[in-house]
């Protein structure tokens, strides 16, 4: 399979391990990625003018004829929303009037969806089944909203993937509750409140690891975890992995390739546990 790849801005900074693990897993699964030429920011959740946001997405989408895959739920949601808006002839005409390469339609996919589809066809590639691993599947908001690959209220895509990896998806009540990420800079307290609720709930549910599909969710739950623990005087200590990192572990890829050394709460003890359990089974 050949796909255009839209890494998104965070892949060059706070989401480096998301980018590394996406590339490594796709390469292992025989998915050829061609990085979008000269891609620009999608505007994330901070470009208030809708038409500008649509224009920014359209410029990216006009760079290729291939289906576009991104590992970032924010980019994903923005591109998909733009595809819908660009079906309106008036909007498309206004946007195309300012674009160098004109937009003529696009197919947008999330890395999770592409990987699940590939593994559904051939799960022999799973060399390290994640037996008995208790995982909190955390979707956040934008993978499925406003309209995505699964139900915006009760998505099950991650659970399906986790079962394919032989892991144990927990019934995670806050799986679609917002992490607060988009307002963490100017509205620190509000954002931290929601992020901490999610972490506490994962702990209560007995999660060994939380899996995410969005770099901002990951930032709020992983990079901020230590600081949140101190402020709330409660130990959490749960590693937070990008879905691509978790798939990579099951494919037997190394910590280096998956950027596991870049996570704030180290997932390395967890990886050791996975390998230990695996050696007992064989």
């Amino acid at each position: 399979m050949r796909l255009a790849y839209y890494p998104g801005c965070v892949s060059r900074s706070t989401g480096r391990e998301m980018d590394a693990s996406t590339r490594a897993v796709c390469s292992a699964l025989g998915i050829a990625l061609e990085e979008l030429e000269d891609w620009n920011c999608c505007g994330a959740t901070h470009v208030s003018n809708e038409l500008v946001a649509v224009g920014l997405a359209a410029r990216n989408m006009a760079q290729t004829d291939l289906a576009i895959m991104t590992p970032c739920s924010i980019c994903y949601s923005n591109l998909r929303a733009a595809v819908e808006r660009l079906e309106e002839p008036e909007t498309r005409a206004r946007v195309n009037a300012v674009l160098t390469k004109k937009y003529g339609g696009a197919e947008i996919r999330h890395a999770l969806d592409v990987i699940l589809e590939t593994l559904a066809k051939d799960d022999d590639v799973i060399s390290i089944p994640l037996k008995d691993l208790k995982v909190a599947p955390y979707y956040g908001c934008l993978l499925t909203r406003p309209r995505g690959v699964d139900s915006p209220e009760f998505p099950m895509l991650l659970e399906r993937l986790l079962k394919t990896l032989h892991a144990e998806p927990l019934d995670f009540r806050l799986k679609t509750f917002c992490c607060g990420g988009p307002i963490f800079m100017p509205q620190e307290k509000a954002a931290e409140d929601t992020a901490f609720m999610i972490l506490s709930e994962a702990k209560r549910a007995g999660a060994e690891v939380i899996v995410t599909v969005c770099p901002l969710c990951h930032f709020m739950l992983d990079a901020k975890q230590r600081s949140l623990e101190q402020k709330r005087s409660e130990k959490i200590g749960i590693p937070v992995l990008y879905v691509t990192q978790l798939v990579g572990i099951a494919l037997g890829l190394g910590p280096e390739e998956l950027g596991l050394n870049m996570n704030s709460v180290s997932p390395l003890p967890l990886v050791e546990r996975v390998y230990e359990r695996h050696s007992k089974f064989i």
Partner: protein
Amino acid sequence: MSFDLDEGFRQTILRMAGGEVQTCIQCGTCSASCPTAHLMNPSIRKLIKLCLEGKRDEALMNDTIWLCTSCLLCTVRCPRGIRPKAVVSACKDLAEKEGIKTKDAAYEQIFSKQIREYGRISELPLTGEFLLVYPQGMVQSMEMGLELMPKGKLGLGVEKIQGRDEVKRIMEELGK
């Protein structure tokens, strides 16, 4: 604060967020779904009412629009097919154009400015510029810097794309 009906404002919101906004039945599903509703005054439901009543100042000068996390649950659940988040975005855009000076508006403006100038966001320069406006964010930023820097996750440079002129055109022409 003015309490006069500003018909122009009402029409602008309807144009930006969709004509279906005027079919709002004030059921409050949006507010009930909102993860930051407990911090908002007015609520999202009330914000829509203010827009429809043309109460421009009350709709634009509040914390509510800046507390929206863009989670889109309101938009998924609205029984009238309204996109309450689009109403919030329209209010934010208008507030920014009016030059409202709050930390939240500043953050969005700096974010947009980076895209307009470079085509991409680089997190360290973004944070740096925001701290000039809002030094109170320093503690949080230092904490995060210490967390991310040793992991090589904060690039010091600025990412620039080739098509900066085109991006600038998109932002200026379409943002009018």
